[in-house]
């Protein structure tokens, strides 16, 4: 059984007809106009600077790829985004599964916790992690008082801090799409699998995983791409030696005032993001909505 065989939602004939006629475009225009004016045009302007400043040419891109520092920052960005994506899949899957099968009281409660944590101010949540993770923070103090460690663990201003903080912040973006996918699976399928003699492990790897692959892919794409461009959490929980690309861009814009190079770095990030999106489209389709 492959992913595409699973009818998640039957396309409605009314929607399909509307799509053929190209209706429904007019109500989209205000949002589209907003995005073009406040997002697309400024981004294009910044990207233009990358080939126009300080003089026309590709010198900013040459400088970017010639610098071991910038390449290292690019590498760090991928390392963090990848680590966070894997961590959210591993932590998010059981939660999404529990949300789908638990009695409604417990699933509602857990759902509220997931959603509420997402609605809490990002900066407040990141500062909370600082309080927890720092050398004189709660975790280190507790461990030292119990006598498990004699020196504070380095949990902040490094990759560990960024990964912990970002995994926590990204978790809902993994859980929500996964939950939607898992909920749409008919539980009878697993009974059928075990009736056919599949062990629990086989039922998981050969039935569960293929059925949820599109949800995992959607969540992973969301988390990975959001992580690539993340700024606040890495800036507060990370150290300068594992800087991510967004921080580098901010530094170039705010402190060095080198907007040409900043534009180049931004375009590199944008191209990579789009490339990943294309790969995702190619393998998993545009959700199931293509009809």
């Amino acid at each position, binding site marked *: 059984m492959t992913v595409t065989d699973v009818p998640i939602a039957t396309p409605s004939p009314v929607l399909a007809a509307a799509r053929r006629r190209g209706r429904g475009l007019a109500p989209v225009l205000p949002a589209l106009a907003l995005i073009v004016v406040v997002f697309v045009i400024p981004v294009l302007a910044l990207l233009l600077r990358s080939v126009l400043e300080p003089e026309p040419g590709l010198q900013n891109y040459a400088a970017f790829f010639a610098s071991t520092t910038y390449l290292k920052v690019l590498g760090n960005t991928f390392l963090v985004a990848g680590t966070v994506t894997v961590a959210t899949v591993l932590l998010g899957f059981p939660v999404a599964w529990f949300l789908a099968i638990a009695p409604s009281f417990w699933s509602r409660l857990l759902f509220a916790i997931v959603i509420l944590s997402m609605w809490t101010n990002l900066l407040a949540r990141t500062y909370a992690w600082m309080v927890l993770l720092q050398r004189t923070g709660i975790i280190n103090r507790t461990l030292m008082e119990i006598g498990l460690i004699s020196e504070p663990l380095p949990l902040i201003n490094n990759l560990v801090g960024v990964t912990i903080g970002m995994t926590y912040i990204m978790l809902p973006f993994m859980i929500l799409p996964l939950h939607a996918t898992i909920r749409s699976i008919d539980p009878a399928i697993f009974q059928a699998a075990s009736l056919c003699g599949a062990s629990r492990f086989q039922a998981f790897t050969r039935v569960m995983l293929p059925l949820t692959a599109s949800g995992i892919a959607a969540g992973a794409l969301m988390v990975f791409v959001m992580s690539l461009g993340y700024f606040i959490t890495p800036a507060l929980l990370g*150290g300068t030696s594992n800087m991510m690309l967004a921080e580098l861009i901010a530094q170039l814009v*705010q402190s060095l005032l080198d907007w040409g190079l900043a534009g180049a770095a931004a375009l590199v990030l944008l191209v990579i993001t789009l490339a990943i999106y294309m790969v995702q489209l190619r393998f998993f389709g545009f959700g199931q909505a293509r009809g």
Partner: protein
Amino acid sequence: MSRTSRALGVAALALAAGLAGAAMAQSGSIVFTSWGGTTQDAQKKSWAVPFTKETGITVKQDGPTDYGKLKAMVESGNVSWDVVDVEADFAAAAAKDGLIEPIDFSIVKRGEIDPRFVTDHAVGSFYYSFVLGFNPASLKGKTPKSWADVFDTTAFPGKRTFYKWSAPGVLEIALLADGVPADKLYPLDLDRAFKKLDSIKKDIVWWGTGAQSQQLLASGEAPIGQFWNGRIFALQQSGEKVDLSWEQNLTAADMLVVPKGAKNKEAAMKFIAEATSPEGQASFATESGYAPVNVKSAALMPKDVAANLPDKHTASQINLDMGYWAAHRDEIGKRWYAWQAE
């Protein structure tokens, strides 16, 4: 007239009315941008409140200062800041790049300002020292004296904290700690400075804002490091047991500038005149623990406060060379951030 064009006409009228309203309102107000925290609170209390009382011009506070934003405003011609508190090396570079207006010295009294802290395009906001700050409780009673102690991780274990951004200060500190005499600092030996910093790099926690530096020191997260003297003063005022050493304190000034094309230039100049007046500077210095740039201010201040200002610790004081920094700001900045990211 079609419905669409009539709607457009109405919208245009509304827009014009709105703009006129905004222009009228603006003649009676300016926007002052600074670094937030205890420093901007003191600026508001000592400068903005009396200024509004005297002139009727309201002062809106904004912040924190962001050089990228300032440049973007000037380039787009839509300047919403009227007076900005910036670091002196940026002021010098911004004057060169045409990002700031010349100061109107028929309004601001140049003669009263310490000549170290006034240029054609910028007037001192306050003058500060980078000092060695420490948290005695976390250092188990040992007292650091000089910058060399900050680099001595055996005698003073734990994290040390320095200013994160490329700016005058940290490189000079590294060279002083490495034994370079104060009068031989410039031009900076960058190789030597970075090599010295490498020796403690893994123990450095960087602070990006004054408030962050206060949090790191007070919590003992980084019990020793480089701080703005006023931030230590503010911690002490609030009862925190932190201390400082004035040995080889490094002075620089923040500068007040007016972005090119600011909408309320004249009011901005008046505000700068108020801020740098003997009274404005004396009041701010009393509040903040930073030193006044106006030579007439010290006489107006309480004796015990005046005794604790950077200008009373001149014996081993070193002036950071803003001329050198303005000329080399870009080149040092590139190397600084590359080194940090290594």
